[in-house]
Structures are given as structure tokens and as C-alpha cells.
């Protein structure tokens, strides 16, 4: 079933029905923000959070869509966007760090 959906997705992409999935990067430079804080993505795209800070962080959807768990310094975590909508997320360790994925 999943394979069929994947084939369908590739077929749609090949026919120009949908653009090919893109890879995005969000950088965590310090404990104050995600950069960029707001990112426009499409279903099927990948988003990689790269932690360049000296302390661990998370990227955790506030509505339960995704949760990176702990991302240690110099580590990263990749999420394949699964559904459309505005996905707000925070770092659960530093709740003042907020971000949004705007999924088309």
C-alpha cells in the first residue's frame, strides 16, 4: 500500500503534477532561536535541524506531529513532512525557542 502510494507520488512528480521533494535545513545557532524560524515547505520535503549550539535542543511539534527528541551539539535530525498545515514547534528544553513549518 505504502509502495503503491510512493509509486503514485513519483508518477505525479514525473508528470509535473507535483514538484520533486526538496531538502531544507534549519540551523540552531544558539539557545534563542531556530533559523529560519518560519519555513515554507511541501508535503514530501525533508527538513533537517542542525544543532550548532553548545547545548542539546529538540524540535517538537506542539500539536503532536513530530518530535526529534534530544539533538546533541553537532548532531542533526531529519523529518519528512507528512501533512499540510501550519506546524508550530518548540524546543522542549528551551520553550522560548519557537518555530513554524508552513506546509503546502
Amino acid at each position, binding site marked *: 500500500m505504502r509502495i503503491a502510494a510512493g509509486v503514485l507520488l513519483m508518477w505525479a512528480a514525473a508528470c509535473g503534477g507535483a514538484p520533486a521533494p526538496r531538502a531544507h535545513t534549519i540551523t540552531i545557532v*544558539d*539557545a*534563542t532561536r531556530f533559523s529560519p524560524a518560519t519555513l515554507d515547505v511541501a508535503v514530501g520535503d525533508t527538513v533537517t535541524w542542525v544543532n550548532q*549550539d*553548545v*547545548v*542539546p535542543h529538540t524540535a517538537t511539534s506542539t500539536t503532536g506531529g513530530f518530535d526529534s527528541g534530544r539533538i*546533541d*551539539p553537532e548532531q542533526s535530525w531529519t523529518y519528512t513532512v507528512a501533512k499540510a498545515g501550519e506546524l508550530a514547534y518548540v524546543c522542549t*528544553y*528551551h*520553550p*522560548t*525557542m519557537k518555530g513554524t513549518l508552513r506546509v503546502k
Partner: protein
Amino acid sequence: MRGISVLAVAAGLLAGPAAPAAAQAVTDAQIAAIVVAANQVDIDAGKLAAARASNPEVKKFGEQMVTDHSSVNKSAAALVNKLKVTPEENPTSRSLKEGGEKNLARLKTLSGAAFDKAYIDHEVEYHQQVLDALDKTLIPGASNDELKALLVKVKPAFVAHLEHARHIQSSLGNGQ
């Protein structure tokens, strides 16, 4: 001369932001010892809070301090190792440790809401003092570029901790 400057740093740390700007004649080896001591003090207090706090926010904050300051110390240790600097104890690092021990001794006599308040009040004060030391002494005093860069990089986490601690402090003050 160096002794006097380091004492001034110690005075700055103890007296907080109101103290006159300290002189900058600390060596990288002394800065390394100060960084390690500053983090260790907050790790120890955080461990106690994680075990003893009654308010869940305070408990979580304590756990957070253990995580973040351990991580900073790991980065600091890696850099110190790479630069082949041997941390050199000095009045500031010693006063930080003594202050930390006094704080722990006091916290251990408290429980419940009194513990939570005393811990958070001290965290606010402590992070203010460390930020002040970073700005006035440690960052300007670091001669190695990588050490300076690490100190600059660490600062936003300390700012976030201070804001977080203040937020908890105000919620505790509202009769929770």
C-alpha cells in the same frame, strides 16, 4: 598585578552587576578553570533541585541545568584539551566553588515551596553574575580566539536560562 585583577573578577562575581567593571588580566588557563567551576556549581545545584524540588517546573529547570551545563563543560573540556591548556585554579574559580557549596548547604536545609523559591532565586542571581562576568571579564579577557568564540557561543544559553528562571520566579511569586 595579576593577583589583584583576578581578585577584582572574584569581587565582580560575588557582588553582582553593581560591582565596578573588573580588570581583564585573566589568563586563558584561569578562564578555563572559571568556566569549569561555574558550570559544575550549577550542575550540582541542578541535581539537587531535580531530586528535591516540589514544583514540577522547578524540577524540570533543575534537570535542564544539569543537561545544558554538562554539555557546555564537555565542549569546554574538549577545547581545553585541544589547546593544551591546563585549567589554573584562581580566586574566582575558588569563590565560585565556595559559593556553590554554601548554596547547596543552605538548600539542603529547605524543602517544599521554600526550597523551590530559594533555588530559583539563587539561579536568577547566579546567571546574572555569570553573564556579567562573561561580558566584562571572560570574553574580553580570553586571548585565544577559539576560547573567546566558545564563550561568545555559550552566552545565549545563559541568557535563556536567566529568562527561564525569572519566568519561574515570577510564577512562584504569584502564590503557587
